[in-house]
C-alpha cells in the first residue's frame, strides 16, 4: 500500500504542474456548460412556460379553455399564463419576447361553437421560440379536437346547442401531462448539460492514469519502477489511484461550481457522492482497458478519445437518450454515462441515496469488469 500511495502521490505532483489537466478537467467542461446553458437554457425556462391569453369572448366554452385547460397546466407548473385584455396586448408581449406565444379567443367564440359553426382561436408565436409556439399550438389543437368530438356527440343526440359547453365541461381534460411524474424526474436543461459535460470530460481527465505507464516506458522511468523492491501490481494500482483522485476532485469541483453558477440542485449529497465515485471508478477502468491495447502513449490517447466520444454520444451526453430511438436507447445502457445521468435524474426528484442504488451498482460493475481486464492485460505494459 505504501508503494501505491508513493506512486500515486508522485503522479499527482506531476499532474498538478500540468496546466492542461486543469484545462481539460475543469475549465473546458465548465466553460462549455455555461455557453450551452446560455444558448439553450432559455428554451426550457421561457419558451415552454409563458403564454399570453386574451379572452374577448368570456363565454362558457372559452372559459372552459382558459380555466380548465390552461388553468390545469398552470397548476402543474408546466405553463405560465398571463391574461391580457386584447389580442394586440398579447401580440406586443410576444414581440417583446416576454412570452413565447399569445392566444386570442375572439368575441362570439362560445356561441359559434355551441351553434356548430366554425370558430377560431388565434395563436401568434415568437419566431425564435419554436418549442414554446409548438406547445401552445398543441394545447389549442387538442382542445379543438375535444370540442369537435363533443359537437358531434351533441348533434347525434339531437340536444340543444347549450349542451356543448356542459358536455365539454364533463369531457376529460383535452390536454394533460400524463407523464408529469416522469418529467419531474428528468434533469432540467442546465443540470443535464452540466452533468453531461462533467461525465463526458471525466473520461478525458482520468485517461492519463494507465496511459502514464506508457509515458514512463518512453521516458525510461518505468525500468526504475520495475527494478525497485515493490510489486509490479503496485505500479498499476498507484496509477489508477491517481486517476481516481483527480477524477473525483474534478467532478466535485464541476458539480459544486455548476450548482453555484447555474443554481443547479443535484439532490442528496450522499447519493451524489456515491454516483460520482462509482462513475470515476467506471471511467478509470474503461480508459485503463483501452490503454492496455495501445503500443505507446500517443496511440492510447487517440483510442481513448474515440472511445470517450462514442460512449458520450451513446450515453446521452449530447442528445437526450429518448431521442436516440428505441434500439440505441437500449444500447446506451452499455455506457457509464447513461447510468450516471440516470442516477442524477433519480436524485433530482428529491429521493435519498437509495434511489441511486441501481445506477451505482451498474457503474461499479463497469469498474469491476474493466478493472479486472486492465489488471490482466497490464503485464505486457510493465515490460520496460
Amino acid at each position: 500500500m505504501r508503494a501505491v500511495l508513493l506512486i500515486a502521490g508522485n503522479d499527482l505532483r506531476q499532474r498538478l504542474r500540468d496546466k492542461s489537466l486543469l484545462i481539460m478537467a475543469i475549465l473546458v467542461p465548465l466553460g462549455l456548460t455555461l455557453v450551452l446553458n446560455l444558448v439553450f437554457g432559455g428554451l426550457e425556462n421561457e419558451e415552454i412556460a409563458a403564454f399570453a391569453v386574451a379572452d374577448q369572448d368570456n363565454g362558457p366554452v372559452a372559459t372552459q379553455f382558459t380555466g380548465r385547460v390552461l388553468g390545469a397546466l398552470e397548476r402543474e407548473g408546466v405553463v405560465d399564463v398571463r391574461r391580457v385584455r386584447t389580442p394586440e396586448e398579447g401580440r406586443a408581449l410576444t414581440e417583446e419576447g416576454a412570452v413565447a406565444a399569445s392566444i386570442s379567443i375572439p368575441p362570439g367564440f362560445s356561441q359559434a361553437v355551441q351553434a356548430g359553426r366554425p370558430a377560431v382561436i388565434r395563436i401568434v408565436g415568437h419566431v425564435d421560440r419554436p418549442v414554446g409556439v409548438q406547445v401552445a399550438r398543441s394545447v389549442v389543437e387538442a382542445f379543438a379536437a375535444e370540442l369537435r368530438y363533443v359537437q358531434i356527440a351533441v348533434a347525434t343526440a339531437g340536444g340543444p346547442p347549450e349542451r356543448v359547453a356542459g358536455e365539454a365541461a364533463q369531457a376529460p381534460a383535452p390536454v394533460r401531462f400524463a407523464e408529469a411524474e416522469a418529467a419531474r424526474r428528468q434533469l432540467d436543461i442546465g443540470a443535464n448539460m452540466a452533468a453531461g459535460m462533467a461525465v463526458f470530460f471525466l473520461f478525458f481527465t482520468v485517461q492519463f492514469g494507465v496511459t502514464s505507464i506508457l509515458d514512463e516506458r518512453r521516458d525510461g522511468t518505468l525500468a526504475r519502477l520495475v527494478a525497485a523492491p515493490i510489486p509490479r501490481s503496485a505500479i498499476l494500482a498507484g496509477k489508477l489511484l491517481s486517476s481516481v483522485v483527480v477524477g473525483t476532485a474534478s467532478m466535485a469541483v464541476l458539480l459544486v461550481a455548476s450548482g453555484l453558477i447555474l443554481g443547479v440542485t443535484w439532490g442528496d449529497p450522499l447519493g451524489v457522492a456515491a454516483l460520482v465515485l462509482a462513475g470515476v471508478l467506471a471511467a478509470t477502468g474503461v480508459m485503463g482497458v483501452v490503454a492496455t491495447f495501445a503500443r505507446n502513449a500517443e496511440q492510447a490517447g487517440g483510442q481513448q478519445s474515440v472511445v470517450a466520444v462514442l460512449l458520450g454520444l451513446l450515453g446521452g451526453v449530447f442528445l437526450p437518450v429518448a431521442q436516440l430511438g428505441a434500439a440505441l436507447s437500449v444500447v446506451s445502457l452499455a455506457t457509464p454515462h447513461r447510468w450516471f445521468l440516470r442516477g442524477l435524474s433519480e436524485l433530482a426528484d428529491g429521493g435519498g441515496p437509495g434511489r441511486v442504488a441501481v445506477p451505482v451498482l451498474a457503474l461499479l460493475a463497469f469498474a469491476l469488469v474493466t478493472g479486472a481486464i486492465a489488471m490482466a492485460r497490464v503485464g505486457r505494459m510493465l515490460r520496460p
Partner: protein
Amino acid sequence: MGDEPVLECRGLRKVFGENTAVDGVGFSIAAGETYGLLGPNGAGKTTTISMVAGILERDAGDVLVEGRVHSPRDGRGKSAIGYIPQELAIYPDLSATENLRFFARLYGLSRARARARTAEVLEVIGLADRAKEPVKQYSGGMKRRLNIGIGLLHEPRLLILDEPTVGVDPQSRNAILESVARLAAEGAAVLYTTHYMEEAERLCDRVGIIDEGRLRAEGTRRELVGLVGENDRVLLTAEGDLAAAAEAAGKLPAVRQAGHGEGRVDLLVESAREVLPAVLDTVTRAGAAVRAVEVREPNLEAVFLHLTGKALRD
C-alpha cells in the same frame, strides 16, 4: 576486495521469439570489484543486466545476490541493487530533490533517512545548489549525474550501470568514471556494461567479453590479453646510432623483435614494464640518446577482434 561474491550468475538465458539474446552467460562479482561486460551494441549486455536487476524474467539460469536466489519478484534482492539504466530515467517536471526523495522512499527508506540521503547524494553528484529547479532545466551532464545519483540513494551492495557514458561529453564521462571507481573503492560490487574498450580497461578489475549473447572470455585485462598472446610494443624516439641501439636491444632475452627507422627504435617485447629499464640502459650504451618512450600494450580491442573476428564498434 571481498572473497564472497555479491553477485553470481549461472547459465543465464533469454530468448525473444526466434532470437536468443543471451545464451548461457555466467559470471560473479565480489564486493569492491568492478566487472565490465564489454561487447558491441546488440551483444546481449542490456538483456543480461536486465535479468540481473530483476527487470526481465529469465528463461533459464540463476542469479544469486549475496548468496540468495534473486528473481523479479524478490524485493529483498532488489533492495541490494542499485540500477542505473542507459537512458535517462528521471521525471523532468520534478526537481532533483523530488526525484531523489521519491526513489529513496520507493526503496524503503524512512522519510527522515530519505531526506538525509537525498542531501548527501546531491552533494556527491554536485547538484546541491540547483536541487530545487525542475530537472528539465538541467544540462545533459547534470541530468546524467542525477540519473546516477538515484541509483546510489539506498547505498546498494551491487551497483549496475548500463552504458552510463553513452552520449555524454568528455568532462561528464570522466566524472562518471571517477564516481564509479570511488564507489567500488568504498566496497560496492559494480557491474558495468560498455562498448568502449577504454572505459573497460580503465575501470574494470575483470572484464567479460560478450558477443551474440555468449560470454566469449573473462578475466583481468592481462589475462585476456594473454589469451591473444600478443607482445608489448616499445617505441623509442632517439638520436645517435639507432642501428647499433636496435641491434643491442635485440639481444636482450625479453625482446622478440628489434628494428629502427628515422629517429626511432621499434621493439617487440614480452612485458614492457619489466624490460623497459634494461632496454633503456642497453640502447644508451649502444650510442643512442633517448628523447621519448611510448609503450603500446595489446588492448581489449585486439582481444575482441581475436575472439570474435570483428571490431567492437561493428
